[in-house]
């Protein structure tokens, strides 16, 4: 049972990387350990918590559910790629203004999931936000202010 290494080409936050990865390497480990983008967090091993959510070709993905090899040829955005020109993304700003984070560990995944949610449904109701974020767990905030933040971002027409 030898280790199989695969060559992949992935564009992450606008930069194209060519890497050799172990076949069993999950995308979250690729992003964290190979590219050093540690904003994407690991909170579980059952794809339950959503802390590792990022965008693959514009869609929210729990990066522990995907092999790095499967990301070959895709374009990925991580939390580090969201703020532009030193300015927080409107969703990040909304989380800030609505106190939608405390310890911050779920936050990168939560923000990426929230951006993904508004991409699909730009004007969600409170209940749609709650159901839309079901796959992302937070232990600190009780979700009250997260929901408020996402609704505020939607109202401001947050771009993707």
């Amino acid at each position, binding site marked *: 049972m030898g280790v199989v290494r695969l060559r992949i080409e992935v564009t992450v936050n606008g930069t194209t990387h060519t890497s050799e990865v172990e076949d069993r390497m999950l995308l979250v480990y690729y992003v964290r350990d190979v590219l050093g983008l540690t904003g994407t967090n690991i909170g579980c091993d059952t794809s339950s918590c959503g802390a590792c959510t990022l965008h693959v070709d514009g869609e929210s993905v729990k990066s522990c559910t995907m092999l790095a090899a499967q990301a070959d040829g895709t374009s990925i955005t991580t939390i580090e790629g969201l703020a532009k020109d030193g300015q927080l993304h409107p969703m*990040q700003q909304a989380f800030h203004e609505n*106190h939608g984070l405390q310890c*911050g560990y779920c*936050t990168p995944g939560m923000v990426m999931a929230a951006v993904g949610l508004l991409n699909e449904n730009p004007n969600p109701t409170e209940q749609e936000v709650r159901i839309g974020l079901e796959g992302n*767990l*937070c*232990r*600190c905030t*009780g979700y009250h*202010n997260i929901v408020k933040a996402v609704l505020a971002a939607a109202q401001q027409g947050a771009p993707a």
Partner: protein
Amino acid sequence: MSVTEAPTSAIGTPLLRKEDPALLTGEARYTNDLNVPGALHLAVLRSPFAHARIASIDVSGALQQPGVVAAYTGADLADAWAAPMPCAWPVTEDMKNPPHHPLAVGKANYVGDGVAAVLAQTEAQALDALQAIDVQYEPLNAVTDLEDALSDRVVIHDDLGTNTSYTWELKIGQEAVDAAFREGGAAFTVKERYIQQRLIPMAMEPRAVVAVPQPFGGDITLYSATQIPHILKIMTAITLGIPEHQVRVVAPAVGGGFGSKLNVYAEELLCMALARKHGVPVRWNEIRAEGAVATIQGRGQIQDIELAADENGKVIALRVRLVGDMGAYLQLVTPGIPLLGAFLYAGVYDLPEAYDFSCTSVFTNLTPTDAYRGAGRPEATYAIERAMDALAAKMGIDPFELRKRNYIRKEQFPYTAFSGLVYDSADHLAAAERAAELAGYEAVRAEQEQRRQAGDTKHLGIGMSSYFEMCGLAPSRVLASLNYGAGGWESATVRVLPTSKVQVVTGSAPHGQGHETAWSQIVAAKLGVSPEDVDVLHSDTAISPIGLDTYGSRSLAVGGIAIDMACDRVIDKARKIAAHQLEAREDDLDFEGGTFSVKGTPDKSVPLAGIAFAAFTAHDLPEGVEPNLEASCTYDPPNFSWPFGTHIAVVEVDTETGGVDLQRYVAVDDCGVQVNPMIVNGQVHGGVVQGIAQALWEEAVYDDDGNLRNPTLLDYMVPSAAEVPSFELDSTVTP
């Protein structure tokens, strides 16, 4: 209804958090994010049996695996420990505390007990190699039930001869208690049993450890996802036999704790011991399902509570019997947790001196318990509030009406409780009435009755809970009376830099609470500077050498006051320099908005900035005044702080399916002056959801053999946004 001291004050402002940008952009570094070249990865092999003799362990197979550098059994490392893992709270003189080491020797006592360790080049290699370790276990009967544990049918720790660790009592007015519960004594009595199920803390950040040795530099740095860098420094130094001044502990960004990171863990000690042994950094990341058994769990009690009341429902005596589940070993403060509730079983009620409390705590073959979300106090509140509802039901009166007859009244404060503790201030009735008003209490009661009459299959449940919480841990002398192994003070240094920016060094160790923001607000209000010009340093014992960390709702109530008092000392010193510069007497100076001015001559003034620079150059300081502008304070509180309030929940219960739909949740809390009401509300939201989750969903479910049935986030029900509603909050401030 938050309080603002003065229009210019930063206190009471919902200032946005300065912690946020780094956390929102992924820039913040948690322990697992640290890039440490050359680090070996630790993996721990854990017992799959709750109770088993370890006949043999053969690690040779692991040593053949790719990347493996070393493998150890508990026996191999016996010499690495100068002392057993610490329990800092020997609650009674005769408390039984079995020796506890980072790897078990001879016997495994719970599923998850570490039995062997591997060091490898990568995390995956270390984990893979665990499978090549051959352990021969001889399984024994497991003790998983508290009453079974009490029976000593199976004794877990042979040398102790019993599973009982201790019995702790608080008996006040025993005759009055006996009289009330005697046949024909009180007009009404109720006797209830409640089960506090075990909970898994599940902080979103799993634990993580990196130990970096400097064998020639003579010290070691421990990075850990911990709430207690200061306590951890002392305890690891003692356990490993390293001089304390050679240990530095850093808590980088920490992703929540809820008490679970208030401990000294085997993996911290293993990483440190092996880093020293191998002379290279050693790191470990907890896997979620591993953490479910290897990190402490919360709660775990049987509560028997009896209330006696007179014909009007006035409670006249209270008897409480607890059985506390310690788990297999005593962790840092395990035995004290049930006792933190001992003073709160009378809740917010005017109980006369008639209180009979006893707690017997036992070992089980389960993960050790310890502090979690309120630690003993919410358990007490739960029991007294449920018992009050039971009493109301027995008397046939409204539960709110019964509470009204029993609340300690506003005019009784400061109130000396049955226990001798003094409650400083509260207005329970006002908070409860406000909550009732917000919830439309009368209307939901009417609807509840109407649905019952109509035979509706969906009934309404209305829960009301009034509470006091013993916070601000703690007056050191009170801790001494409880046999706690440390004090309860907190330390702060406030330093005005030459360019008038301010550094605050705090002994508190935040992990989500927003201390950097709130502490900045305190300093800004005191010194008349902008909160942005204040930098709060914390959680690194090289920067903040003195402190007692963050737990027990203590950081603002104790640490915040230390900062406030250190600011006063800075102002005192600055006043001397200002008086010298302005050629005025110190008591002729006003200090406001960051400027000293001569009373009656406001244009004769000097800003703090000017004084800071003068203190730095030291060219012209008054006689006896040392250069630089900084002061420290260590504050030991004279009393606990006593926040209180009333929460009301309205749920719809489907009587056909048993489904519960939480429809309304109203919380009215009084924590006194709020430094940052936005942060306070955020804390309430999070606490409420964890409380709801205990009531409705969360439980560490064990089978009779001591196997945890739900160790992952797939099957342990941490609620998501979809399960909970938004909340209606209000607050009161009672001087």
